[in-house]
């Protein structure tokens, strides 16, 4: 009896498996392309894209494609690679997705995005599109993800907090000023420990590097190189002696401590100015309060100073945008994609201080303010993370966040750097 039951169970399990895998294979074949009205889902990440741009996208799309609807679903930067890996390979994939420029390679190399043909590329902007970001979205000579916007970090400050202190002109002065200004109630530089983007300029300015590829293709990580260590020492000095931010915190809601008046310098993406300059009592019930009447009033920007003056080499933050390979309606997705890269849409992004996907629209970024000027200076000297499809794994393993949290907690820089280099090399060379 018992044996019979087992055999029966096993038999049905096997039958089912076969039946199901058969279904699976059938589902893999390309479905006939639909036409007519449909639904398109666009995934934008974080709050960087302003509401005006979202409204414009939805309105224009629905005008151009009568009967079709476009839904924007906002995703979080946290755990984005995990989420896209499953979402984009499933049957319910979104149609158009924004992806961090340093994360794009993980997906372009694995066929997650629909190819942008040479003709489409020309129509969408061609050589006008930001070259560095186009490259980030290429794989084996083909285009998969095009630039969405770029935005380098700007150092914000308010004269009300800074007082008579001189604005630093070199990186060393920046470190010293931060340490001098710090009290129990004031951060010279507000720097949550997990914010590794802000750490990269210190590495680069001191002659260090993240990882370089040798001629035989192997990667060599450089946090423990001479320049890298010098940079990490400076980072630790600021983090431990010039900063009250928690060593294990992420760089979210940076306007909160700034608006409390507890921050002298805040290095953050340029669109943060709108969060700081938001009214204390937001009209929208879900809105985030800022401090437009106090510290937002005289908000100034500064490009992070370099080792020898001028603007430092900073991390080229920004996003790419792509059409999902599994999009049910590639035709409608392309229509939304064209709007996202249109001059009108990109001008809205430029209007809030982001650098648009097209170089010809750079002039639309307001550079009359010190913030706009600083953003432009920083962008001109921006650098990317190593161009390896495996770099996204370094990010998703949060190796850098952890390493910088430990540096912020005051642990030995050399030990951390050597461990970090070993871990990065293991991933990039695997």
């Amino acid at each position, binding site marked *: 009896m018992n044996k019979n039951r087992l055999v029966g169970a096993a038999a049905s399990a096997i039958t*089912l498996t076969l039946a199901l895998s058969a279904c699976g294979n059938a589902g893999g074949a390309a479905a006939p392309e639909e036409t007519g009205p449909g639904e398109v889902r666009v995934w934008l990440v974080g709050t960087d894209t302003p509401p005006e741009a979202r409204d414009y996208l939805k309105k224009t799309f629905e005008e151009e494609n009568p009967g079709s609807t476009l839904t924007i679903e906002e995703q979080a930067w946290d755990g984005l690679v995990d989420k896209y890996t499953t979402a984009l390979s499933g049957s319910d994939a979104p149609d158009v997705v924004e992806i961090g420029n340093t994360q794009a390679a*993980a997906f372009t190399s*694995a066929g997650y995005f629909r190819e942008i043909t040479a003709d489409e590329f020309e129509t969408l902007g061609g050589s006008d599109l930001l070259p560095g970001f186009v490259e980030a979205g290429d794989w084996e000579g083909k285009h998969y993800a095009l630039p969405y916007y770029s935005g380098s970090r700007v150092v914000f400050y308010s004269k009300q907090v800074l007082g008579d202190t001189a604005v630093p002109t070199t990186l060393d002065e920046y470190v010293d000023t931060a340490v001098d200004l710090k009290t129990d109630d004031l951060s010279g530089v507000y720097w949550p420990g997990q914010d590794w983007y802000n750490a990269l300029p210190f590495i680069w300015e001191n002659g260090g590097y993240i990882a370089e590829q040798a001629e035989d293709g192997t990667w060599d990580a450089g946090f423990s190189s001479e320049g890298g260590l010098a940079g990490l020492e400076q980072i630790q000095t600021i983090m431990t002696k010039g900063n009250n931010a*928690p060593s*294990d915190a992420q760089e979210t809601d940076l306007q909160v401590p700034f608006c409390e008046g507890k921050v002298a310098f805040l290095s953050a993406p340029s669109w943060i100015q709108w969060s700081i300059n938001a009214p204390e009592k937001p009209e929208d019930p879900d809105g985030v309060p800022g401090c437009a009447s106090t510290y937002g009033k005289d908000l100034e920007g500064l490009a992070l100073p370099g080792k020898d003056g001028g603007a430092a080499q900073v991390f080229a933050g920004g996003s790419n945008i792509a059409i999902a390979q599994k999009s049910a309606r590639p035709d409608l997705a392309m229509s939304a994609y064209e709007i996202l890269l249109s001059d009108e849409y990109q001008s809205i992004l430029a209007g809030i201080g982001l650098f648009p996907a097209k170089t010809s629209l750079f002039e639309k970024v307001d550079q009359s303010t010190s913030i706009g000027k600083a953003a432009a200076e920083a962008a001109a000297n921006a650098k990317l993370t190593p161009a390896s499809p495996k770099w996204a794994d370094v990010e998703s393993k949060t190796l850098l966040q952890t390493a910088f949290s430990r540096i912020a907690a005051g642990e030995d820089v050399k030990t951390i750097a050597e461990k970090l280099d070993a871990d990065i090399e293991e991933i990039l060379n695997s």
Partner: protein
Amino acid sequence: MSSTLLDAPAPPRQEIRRKRRPPYLPWLLLSATMVLLGVLTGFPLVRLVVMSFQEYERAQLMGLPAEWVGFDNYAAILTDVDGFWTVLARSFVLMVVLVVVTIVLGMLVALLMMRVGKAMRLLVSVGLLLAWAMPSLAATTVWGWLFDTQYGVVNNLLTKITGDRWFGYSWLLDPLSFFVIVTCIVVWGAVPFVAFTLYAGLTQIPEEVIEAAQLDGASAFQRFRLIQLPYVRSIVTVLVVLSMIWDLKLFTQVFVLQDIGGDRELTSTIGVYIYQTGMAQGHYGVASAIGVIFVIVMLAIAYPYVRRTLREEEL
């Protein structure tokens, strides 16, 4: 399926008995369950085993044919001392601590509930139920806030009590205090079930036995050790085995706390490690192989429990 039922209405009961037909009906009734189990458990399991013998990365997920690699994935894992073995050992140590603390505390609470009056017992029960009903994701988030580096109530209290400056002290960055917090959350969530079950068992012990022991001069601890504990021994065994399985499978609490600010590499337990290898880094083949090894480990742990249950059924 339903049409078969309609076409051939079940014959009256007596007829079945006379004819002694093979029992189709039980099988028919079972079939729905078996289909569900097959789809929800069987298929993923088969897929897991298949994938563990393949090189399965992000590209394969998009339809690129997967290459068979034999035992390569297993070899890579079993020789990975810094990765797999460390994580497995960590999970086991954590599991032992969690199980011991949970069972001891659960037993103490159960004994407490035996002693206190009706009103207090109700209060304790409600408290336990609330903790038990709380989803672990929500619970972990709130515990994370308690220990928040900047605004957490724990750092605030410590500053008030000791007079030192605790603001900015990160509880999660140090693996040891990370696991102390994990232990708090898991034990807090697991004690109610253990306490209720043990309480139910303890109340079934005949009053006379305890009374007789009391008359013979047995102390409270002797009564517990020599009478109450042997009576509920089988319950304790079941609770220990179940707790072992639950605590080895630990995922939510560790994953959420890591997100708030822990060192992933030094705090990952086996469940989180599988997720990171598979979902986050896209090495599905390797992650599947770890999963298979983990299933085998779990089966070995569950075996005594299953055997015991089966033996009791036979009696």
